[in-house]
């Protein structure tokens, strides 16, 4: 019904709109793991700090990887378009 190019644009739009939430999701997940580990072990914020930091770095890295995937998709598409 819609062309391959339109489907690709949809996919990329959806992925781009998800980048910010992925970052937030990583930090939120880090927070949750750290909070419950601290609560379980009776500590006062060590794991919370560690896992929030891990979430921030992990979020940045995941967003970077997703952008690389988008770029790779684009270059694959342009290679297909250039092919005779």
């Amino acid at each position, binding site marked *: *019904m819609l062309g391959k190019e339109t489907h*690709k644009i949809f996919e990329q739009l959806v992925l781009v709109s998800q980048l910010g939430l*992925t970052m937030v999701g990583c930090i939120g997940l880090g927070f949750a793991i750290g909070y419950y580990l601290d609560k379980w072990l009776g500590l006062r914020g060590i794991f919370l700090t560690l896992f929030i930091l891990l979430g921030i770095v992990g*979020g940045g890295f995941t967003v970077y990887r997703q952008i690389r995937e988008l770029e790779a998709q684009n270059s694959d598409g342009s290679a297909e378009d250039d092919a005779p």
Partner: protein
Amino acid sequence: MEGIGKVSQWVFHLGGMRIELNSATLLMTWLIMGLILVFTVLATRRREMVPGPWQHLSELLVGWIKDLCVDALGEQWGKRYYPLICALFIFLLLCNWIGIIPYMDEPTKDLNTTLGLGIMGFFIAHGTAIWVKGPKTYITEYFKPIFFLMPLNVVGELAKVVSISFRLFGNIMGGSIIIIVVSYLAYGLILPPFLYAFFGLFVGTIQAFVFTVLTLVYIAVQIR
């Protein structure tokens, strides 16, 4: 206004354990599954070369999602996964639309539904990855590009579930709260029907599509 944050539950005890079931979510989910079954029966009851309206609608929807899957996953995996993706899209679409009917609640307004679907997508994507690449290659990919980045890769994969689930839940929950607040302030005049149309139909369709495409893309990323 008292409807905000209200969760109707069935509570019972089983072997010393307190079990709570969100009754509205369960009932609405079963209702939607029933509606999908009715739609399926209507669409496939009398299949003809010149299709009737139900057959035409289903062919249009299924054909479009099949194309989407084949484009994202390739011919072999696209054909294998399109029934799942199609079912997911239709289910989410009806879940988000059902809130426009008075006294009906969207099951996607409950985090349990969206998180459940997100976890399902996660297991499907990673199960497929293990099947396609083999367990050894699958595990070694977590240690790329450098071995100490493994925790970051794991957190990133787990965060995908959190982010897609909370996105759908937040959008639908936020929409319903706005509708309740504005209806209360405007005494149900003029604005609420437009809000229902916007949050129920428009945002509902967009979010169902986004969730479906993200699940598809996460499977595609694992296969590639």
